[in-house]
């Protein structure tokens, strides 16, 4: 569905993307992760045909991103809403739908993002969260194979974000390919079947959320008791608890038992996505 092959892009002296490649197959739901300024938005803009790559090949379903064919294959949300204030929700969704051959019905799209009651409200009178929902309805009403979402939940509180995820999950079915950018790792985890991390314009990771954790996620053994002797660095003492960070937690526990050290309340935890992310990008987000 998407071919993004050895793409580089600079703005003057600033290198926004350098030699980034990824292909996305039909049906994938891909999170494009990275801190601010990582190059996520540039990548999306190139896919949308809003910017040209300096080098590399970009295709949407075999077409150049600027072509009408590519544009009829994909739909997007605006990153900053900035809607025409005096149009109503229904009008703007109808407007978007009318550009495509086989759109969903407007009512259906309004329902999917809980906008029925707001249908006759003017866009200028909506809250930020409501406007985000309208933006998503604009991306899903065309019912095209590829949907690009640039930071779909930025600026929402936790509860609205979760609601939005539910609505997104319900709207995506087998025939949609979705690429979304986010700087919330939680969002990637909740929605994506694949994660791509870019940082400072280079590709840092590309794989499933599981691989992502396995590769970067160190595990921790955490218990009340003394640490194993002869281990440095990865051992922390927190009150009477010992916290050990290690790739092989099973081996550590086996050694602990073998050494006859008394322990209780033992927990094995995985580091959170946030921790992993900070690890990859060098604690700089």
């Amino acid at each position, binding site marked *: 569905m998407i071919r993004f092959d050895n793409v580089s892009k600079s703005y003057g002296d600033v290198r926004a993307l350098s030699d980034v490649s990824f292909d996305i197959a039909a049906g994938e739901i891909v999170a494009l992760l990275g801190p601010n300024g990582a190059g996520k938005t540039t990548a999306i803009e190139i896919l*949308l*045909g*809003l*910017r*040209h790559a300096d080098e590399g090949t970009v295709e949407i379903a075999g077409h150049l991103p600027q072509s*009408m064919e590519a*544009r*009829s294959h*994909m*739909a*997007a*949300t*605006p*990153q*900053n*809403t*900035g*809607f*025409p204030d*005096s*149009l109503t929700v229904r*009008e703007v969704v109808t*407007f*978007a739908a*009318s*550009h*495509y*051959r086989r759109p969903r019905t407007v009512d259906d799209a309004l329902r999917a993002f809980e906008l029925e009651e707001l249908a006759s409200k*003017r866009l200028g009178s909506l809250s930020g969260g409501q406007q985000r929902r309208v933006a998503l309805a*604009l991306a899903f009403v065309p019912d095209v194979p590829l949907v690009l979402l640039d930071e779909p939940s930025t600026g929402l509180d936790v509860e609205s974000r979760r609601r939005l995820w539910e609505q997104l999950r319900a709207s995506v079915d087998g025939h949609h390919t979705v690429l979304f950018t986010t700087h919330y790792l939680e969002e990637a985890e909740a929605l994506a079947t694949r994660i791509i991390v870019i940082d400072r314009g280079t590709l840092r990771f590309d794989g499933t959320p599981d691989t992502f954790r396995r590769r970067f996620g160190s595990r921790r053994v955490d218990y009340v008791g003394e640490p194993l002797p002869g281990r440095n660095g990865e051992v922390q003492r927190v009150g009477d608890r010992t916290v050990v960070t290690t790739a092989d937690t099973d081996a550590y526990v086996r050694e602990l038992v073998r050494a006859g050290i008394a322990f209780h309340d033992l927990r094995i935890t995985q580091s959170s996505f946030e921790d992993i992310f900070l690890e990859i990008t060098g604690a700089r987000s």
Partner: protein
Amino acid sequence: MNALILVRIHTLAVLRELMRTPAFIIPTVGFPAMFFALFGLPYARSSSATADFIMCSYAAFSLVGVTLFQFGVGVANERGRPWERYLRTLPVSIVTRFAARVSVALIFGLAAAGLVALEARLLTPVNFTAAQWLVLTGYTLCGAAPFVLLGIAIAYWVAPRGAMPVTNIVYLLCSFAGGFWMPPQYLPSIAAAVSPYLPTRQYGELVWSVAQSGHDARTAALALVAFGIAFAIVGAVGYRRDERARYA
């Protein structure tokens, strides 16, 4: 999708948006009629010939204003809007969207000129045959084309904040020196000297040819085409420059 259907959809969307902003629509459509009431009516009452001439001037004045502001100020303000970026991701060509914008400007322009004509019909001895009304409408619409292009040139060469004052000055100076408010022979000497080289004056000559003899519609039309080409080139260069800066 069918391009004509999309022109209609985009025209309606812009029309809806503007119609719901009374602070925009009333001054835009009403300004030329107000100006006509203040400065045209006192003279237009004197005779049919004068009334015909002045009404033609104000019809052209209406279209120049609406097109310059729709394109000069409107496009300048929109070129940086996030909504504009979103529209670019839709499967619709720039030509279709431009056609919609022109339609909107012509609708508003006709409304503004229509108010002037109505005022003239009710309050002056204006004396036109049906054929003259028809020709005037055609000339007024066609003669507005260079001003659409001039507006675009302003929009792409002047910073968005500057678009309003620059458009205003261009509009008022060119209207004055073009002879829309007083016949060219009464213009002060400097204005009279530059007048023949202004697109507004040529537009005036075109519409005045409907009201009285002594105005050469063909020469005026050729001059307007030349102005149109010049403004189109300046606008196109500005457009490309903006494209490179914003969407390279």
